[in-house]
């Protein structure tokens, strides 16, 4: 029997992916988060939760590791017949929470509500990049030996930490063994010679891998598949690292020794890895020593896998001064062809910021884009990112309350002074919460998976979140920048300068959510917007961003942890707007807030938008810290059809990097297609869009989330 072509195999797993997506929607409705790679198994997983004795909760290394092992033991096996790899995950295990009562910090919740702080980081999942080289070098058997060696070497009073880590590795090995049995059973029953051979190869490969480190590219990628499955199962974490460099040595060895003779085979491997999960990783980037680009043939093959499979995936191309032109050209070519693809992580702003935060240039170059909006030093940095938000609009409303209640002069200066004090308090709340989180996290939900892939935790016998690694960076993202900046500008123009409105009229209109005050609302909305360039709203946006950056990033937490400021709302503009009252930019109560640091749609005079103006605006307010301030941009697909269009987009991305941008998320789609898909998502089941830092099937998004993308298009006219 003739083996199916590699493209046919990729088409087969894509078909399955679309079927899974439909099944997920059927079961749970639309979902607005990262697609992930979880498989909708027909049966739920029955496993025993082990509780910590004193609290009766599933917390702490012993209970958590036992529970996770139970979960893995009960987890079903899965091998797609056309895949190169075994394994899939069914969803995150219910483990490691809620935190013990004595470790909860609930007394500030009311104040958080007052400030519209909906995410303060406490109890949240890690946002850390592991160093997969550790696993690839040692293999599961080697990881086990390492745990046992250091347990013996350190002779800790309590062996709970090492016992727990040992439990995780053994459970993983057992799960792999069950896949081996399954593959052999499937092979025995399979009449198709290719499918039988594929199952046998998977079985043999994993018989080696269950104890030994990978020798070939296929084995290395199978190892990554196991890692990203348990990584997601435990904490929904999703970082692989500098993927091309991780895999390059295996690819080169396979080529040199003749094991791989057709690069399409590598493309198939990549597609299978992406089918397994949407873990974040980076291709291209800087050599830490000299800044030269590190792209290799492997980078191109990963990109080819993204393109041919064309499902949601989260891989970034690193933009920097010495980037690989050919690889970037290919990225943009596929962006035009597929409408999506990689996102563009920019060293211009990220490196400058990380260095300003006290790190070396070499460290900045090593910090890979391994999360939705964030970067991390793989395996040597513990961080918490993308789970902590400060709303920049609510403090303005509280400042107005204070101003109106005071007998003092009602002026912009006084309003700003009050605003500064509220922002300061928001930052204090966040910082105190992060201190608290780091103090107690390991006692509740230790990093049982990532400890294995970091430099320090096993050697020291200490959890990654509690001294296992030396570099610790917390992060916080601000939201509603345009909402706040446009509000300040509208107050200044109509209340202070032209005096068309009194402070009382403004305040009353806001209190009443503009009921019977449509003219006031429209007047406020007519003020020149942030993003147009050199407007007062641009001035306020910069001033607010600088204030927030200075207060949050200027001082560490009380326990001495750095907090890196960024501006990012994720796609959650509806969630963050829901409890926010009417704002002076003419926004109704409960309407969505502005997206990340993007200007609101239609920000140019006359209601249009321009990609250059938008990029200038975002680059101009970017927090220079090492955290990101992403730009969301949608390009008309007509440009893709034109000569020179690719060069224009390349120049656009590079200029954003030159200006200190940190991350660009691009969609290329036609207005008519996006409107049709919004109206009838079933017509485009395979349309993939980059919502923010993550990509998703457009169909799987809620109507509200789809509307975000549509609004940007309507504004473009």
């Amino acid at each position, binding site marked *: 029997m003739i083996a199916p072509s590699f493209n046919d195999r990729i088409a087969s797993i894509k078909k399955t992916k679309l079927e899974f997506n439909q099944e997920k929607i059927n079961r749970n409705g639309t979902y607005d988060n990262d697609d992930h790679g979880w498989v909708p198994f027909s049966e739920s997983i029955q496993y025993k939760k082990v509780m910590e004795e004193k609290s009766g909760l599933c917390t702490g290394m012993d209970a958590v590791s036992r529970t996770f092992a139970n979960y893995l033991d009960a987890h079903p096996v899965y091998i797609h017949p056309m895949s190169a790899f075994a394994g899939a995950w069914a969803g995150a295990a219910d483990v490691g929470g809620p935190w013990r009562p004595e470790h909860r910090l609930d007394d500030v919740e009311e104040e958080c509500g007052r400030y519209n702080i909906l995410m303060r980081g406490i109890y949240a999942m890690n946002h850390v990049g592991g160093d997969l080289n550790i696993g690839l070098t040692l293999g599961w058997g080697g990881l086990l030996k390492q745990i046992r060696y250091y347990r013996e070497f350190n002779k800790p009073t309590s062996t709970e930490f090492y016992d727990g880590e040992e439990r995780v590795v053994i459970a993983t090995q057992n799960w792999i063994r069950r896949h081996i049995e399954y593959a052999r059973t499937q092979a025995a029953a399979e009449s198709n010679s290719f499918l039988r051979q594929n199952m046998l190869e998977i079985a043999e490969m994993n018989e080696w891998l269950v104890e030994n480190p990978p020798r070939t590219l296929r084995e290395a990628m199978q190892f990554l598949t196991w890692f990203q499955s348990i990584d997601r199962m435990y904490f929904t974490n999703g970082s692989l690292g500098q993927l091309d460099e991780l895999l390059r040595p295996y690819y080169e060895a396979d080529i040199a020794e003749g094991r791989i003779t057709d690069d399409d085979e590598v493309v198939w491997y990549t597609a299978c890895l992406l089918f397994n999960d949407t873990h974040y990783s980076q291709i291209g980037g800087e050599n830490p020593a000299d800044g030269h680009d590190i792209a290799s043939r492997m980078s191109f093959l990963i990109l080819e896998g993204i393109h041919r499979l064309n499902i949601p995936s989260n891989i970034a191309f690193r933009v920097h001064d010495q980037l690989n032109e050919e690889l970037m050209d290919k990225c943009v070519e596929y962006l035009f062809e597929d409408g999506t693809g990689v996102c563009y992580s920019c060293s211009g702003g990220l490196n400058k910021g990380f260095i300003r935060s006290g790190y070396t240039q070499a460290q900045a170059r090593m910090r890979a884009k391994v999360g939705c909006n964030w970067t991390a030093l793989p395996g040597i940095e513990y961080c918490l990112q993308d789970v902590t938000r400060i709303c920049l609009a609510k403090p303005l409303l509280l400042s107005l309350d204070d101003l109106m209640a005071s007998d003092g002069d009602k002026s912009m200066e006084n309003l700003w002074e009050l605003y500064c004090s509220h922002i300061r308090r928001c930052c204090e709340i966040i910082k105190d919460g992060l201190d608290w989180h780091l103090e107690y996290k390991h006692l509740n939900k230790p990093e049982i998976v990532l400890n294995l892939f970091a430099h320090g935790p096993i050697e020291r016998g200490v959890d990654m979140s509690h001294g296992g690694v030396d570099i610790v960076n917390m992060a916080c993202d601000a939201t509603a920048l345009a909402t706040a900046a446009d509000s300040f500008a509208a107050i200044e123009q109509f209340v202070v300068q032209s005096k068309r409105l009194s402070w009382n009229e403004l305040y009353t209109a806001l209190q009443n959510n503009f009921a019977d005050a449509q*003219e006031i609302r*429209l*007047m406020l909305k*007519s003020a020149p917007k942030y993003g147009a360039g050199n407007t007062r709203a641009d001035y306020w946006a910069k001033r607010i961003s600088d204030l927030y950056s200075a207060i949050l990033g200027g001082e560490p937490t009380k326990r001495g942890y750095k907090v890196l400021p960024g501006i990012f709302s994720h796609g959650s503009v509806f969630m963050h707007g829901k409890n926010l009252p009417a704002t002076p930019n003419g926004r109704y109560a409960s309407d969505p807030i502005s997206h990340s640091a993007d200007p609101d749609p239609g920000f140019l005079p006359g209601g249009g938008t321009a990609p250059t103006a938008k990029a200038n605006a975002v680059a101009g307010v970017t927090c220079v810290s090492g955290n990101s301030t992403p730009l969301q941009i949608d390009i008309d697909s007509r440009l893709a059809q*034109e000569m020179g269009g690719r060069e*224009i987009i390349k120049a*656009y991305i590079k200029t954003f990097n*030159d*200006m200190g941008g940190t991350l660009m998320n691009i969609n290329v789609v036609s207005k008519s297609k996006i409107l049709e898909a919004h109206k009838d998502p079933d017509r485009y089941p395979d349309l993939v869009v980059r919502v923010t830092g993550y990509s998703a099937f457009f169909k799987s998004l809620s109507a509200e989330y789809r509307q975000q993308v549509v609004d940007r298009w309507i504004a473009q006219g």
Partner: protein
Amino acid sequence: MKGIITDIQRFSVHDGPGIRTTVFLKGCSNRCAWCHNPETFTVKPQLEFFSERCIACGRCLSVCQEGVHSISDGRHIVDLTLCNNCGQCIASCYVGALVVTGQEMTSEEVMEQIRMDEPYYKRSGGGITLSGGEPVMQWEFAKEILLLCKELGIHTTLQTAGNYDFEYLSALVPYLDLVMYDIKAFSEDIYKNVIHGDPRRILNNLMDLDCMGIPIIVRTPVVGSVNDTEQEIEAIATYLGDMKHLVHYMLIPYHGLGKVKYDALGMEYNNTFYTPDKERMQQLERIAARYVKVYNNESGYING
């Protein structure tokens, strides 16, 4: 110096190489019947009324001294013939139903807008484009902007239709890197009946410009029922065959998107033109390609 600007469009990618900012100067010396930018006909600012945006709040009635605005049966009626362009009603309209087309700006103000995207010009090989209407109608203002751009090393392009005395154009050439020259027809009848321009002057100006050694892209908007014939395109292409500095020739299909603008200006819209289909455009491009290098936006050079 001040000029009248219809619009400044950033991230403009069809008006010359790279990423550009296109500055639209108001006023035109032709009156092409198919024109989709009627707001550019006259140099002076004009009030535009977009009825679909109006919420009939009545604020404009209270500020207008000339009686331009009235409300009848809940509908806002605008008599633009009474308007003296004082701008009072525009300032009172928060929904953008009343806007002025044509803003008086100094060259410094225009440069402030241009400079916002300067880094993109350098990265992409782009720059600025002066367009219209007919930008040469405000040649002194255009010259000042071009001079300021050249001082900054910004690439400059002029889009023109050539219907004026050559001395105005020649005054701009020292500050230009590229000219995009529209030849809308060759036959005198078309000029007489539809374009309302002087064909000999337009065609002669092109050749005189060519003698000055500046790169020129010639474009013809192909308008169904006007100039979409083999004879017309062949005549133009033959004429261009003698040029020494022609970069290439482009045929641009007409699109009829101007109705809303005609309505907003209170102008009658008598459009009987149609867009030639792709096959027809390709036929005409092949004919032109017998005489000159022809460039298509989507497929690049179709010859040589």
